């Protein structure tokens, strides 16, 4: 039986296009929404598992109606089917509420491997992946930048941690969180884009509890510059260097 691989994806504002409004310090998303960058490595990894060893790849997202574009792109890259948990604003809920909504559907899918990006480009909590693993009672391997389906029936994964490059082995079912370096995500081909139109996407209206008693948060704002910058000019290089070395010592940076 083919492996059952589910990839969790999030659609985010293109962080290259966001603008920070000077007066208020608030974030103005640019026009475009994209698949969060680490999730693209997760999709690519799933498709490569399918191509090399046979797998059925399902992409799952939780998001507003527009998030269907993210699913279409994943299908065009080579995923087989998509599930869209439709909710107006996933960012109004905390990660645990999001993880619970996703885990609820994952249980029914009975995946061998759940792949996701390490974190999303926007809120960068890096929490949904481990929380999904916890709710499903699965191990999680984070920061995956190397993946091999070997020895038979096992995954050999590499990850860069504080102590160096770690190699781990794990047997499915497992949750894997991808980071850059894992692969080069492909661009959808024209053929892939055409094929995607015929692939099934299931839409399920999903009610996710909004920020709860346990947690709430403010709109993001640009941090104030708390340190008034010291500027040294019109002094000889040796004097400037001396002042800088003194400042570095004062700030305990050296």
């Amino acid at each position: 039986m083919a492996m059952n691989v589910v990839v969790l994806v999030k659609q985010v504002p293109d962080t290259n296009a966001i603008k920070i409004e000077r007066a208020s310090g608030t974030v103005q998303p640019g026009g475009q929404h994209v698949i969060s960058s680490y999730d693209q490595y997760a999709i690519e990894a799933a498709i490569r598992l399918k191509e090399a060893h046979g797998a059925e790849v399902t992409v799952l997202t939780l998001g507003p109606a527009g998030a269907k574009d993210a699913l279409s792109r994943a299908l065009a890259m080579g995923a087989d089917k998509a599930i869209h948990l439709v909710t107006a604003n996933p960012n109004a809920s905390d990660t645990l509420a999001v993880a619970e909504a996703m885990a609820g559907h994952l249980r029914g899918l009975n995946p061998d491997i759940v792949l996701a990006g390490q974190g999303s480009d926007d809120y960068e909590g890096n929490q949904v992946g481990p929380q999904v693993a916890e709710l499903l009672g699965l191990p999680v391997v984070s920061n995956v930048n190397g993946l091999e389906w070997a020895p038979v029936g096992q995954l050999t994964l590499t990850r860069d941690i504080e102590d160096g490059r770690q190699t781990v082995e794990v047997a499915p079912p497992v949750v894997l969180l991808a980071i850059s370096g894992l692969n080069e995500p492909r661009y959808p081909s024209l053929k892939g884009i055409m094929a995607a139109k015929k692939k099934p996407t299931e839409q399920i209206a999903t009610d996710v509890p909004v920020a709860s008693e346990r947690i709430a948060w403010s709109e993001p704002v640009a941090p104030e510059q708390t340190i008034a910058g010291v500027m040294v000019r019109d002094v000889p290089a040796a004097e400037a260097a001396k002042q800088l070395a003194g400042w570095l010592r004062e700030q305990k940076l050296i």
Partner: protein
Amino acid sequence: MAEPERHSGTVLAVAESDRGGALRPVSWEMVTAGRAVADAIGGPLVALLFGSGVGDAAGLLGAAGADRVLCADDPGLANANSEAASAVLVDAIAAVRPSVVLIPGTTLGRDYAPRVAARLRAGLAADAVALAVDGDALVATRPVFGGRVQTEVRLRGPGARLVTVHPGSFPAASPQDGVPQAIEGLTVALGDLETRVRVRDTVAAASGPVDLDRATIVVGGGRGLKEAGNFGLVEELATSLDGVVGATRAVTDAGWRPHHEQIGQTGRTVAPRLYVAVGVSGAIQHLVGIQGSDYIVAINRDPDAPIFKIASFGIVGDLFEVVPALIDELKP
């Protein structure tokens, strides 16, 4: 209706050891952060360390300022994964009933903190760079959108509130700040949790991209260096600061430096304690990659270079004079 469980006012700060059983630097910062929150809410600070052969390291946590020290010392925790670490923390929380749990924002901490939050249905703020107490709320400030903006997360409720703390955000406590405490052993039933993910090996990283991501000090060189051969100045400065070398896109595109050293929107994002920009004008594409730095020092001959707008310390001058003078100043 039963009274809701009152939180104890206790702060539990989790430390972390390296493979050799020594405290990671972030552990000292966790004591500082924990002490500050405990003093703000008027409760005791309990430190927790888990691992294999970590008894001596745990002893340092009391001396650094914790009021109590818990230690789970078990050969099964030598290569702790998120499930085993979660089991330890859940048990410690049950033993201490803390109001606040501070967890290092390390690779491991950011794996097990979410699991524990899910198990306890607790609020969790990720990767805090500052903490404050406001009435009955714990307020964690955290960067989002690549560190370009920040949000304030307010954690409430009767149970434990969890926070992972970004390494390098708090000053390190020293083992002279407090008094040594007796170590309270914590025995955790690990079952098969340690074996579901098997660590085959861990190879200490040679120099490379890893260094750049985790470096405390990064020296970045830009087009102002004029040619590849002059990058030796940046390397020499990095060596004397005990830091690592990075580069702007202009530099890597020109082939002066390898692509993996590129910092910025299309390269790596760094968040060191100190970023030294040498001959870097400060194009937006580069600034995005360094904005998480705690301190930015800029050396550039153009007083209008955008890098000076975000620099904590700027020198307007000729880098070919200033950098050698600085290297001289830094000699012990």
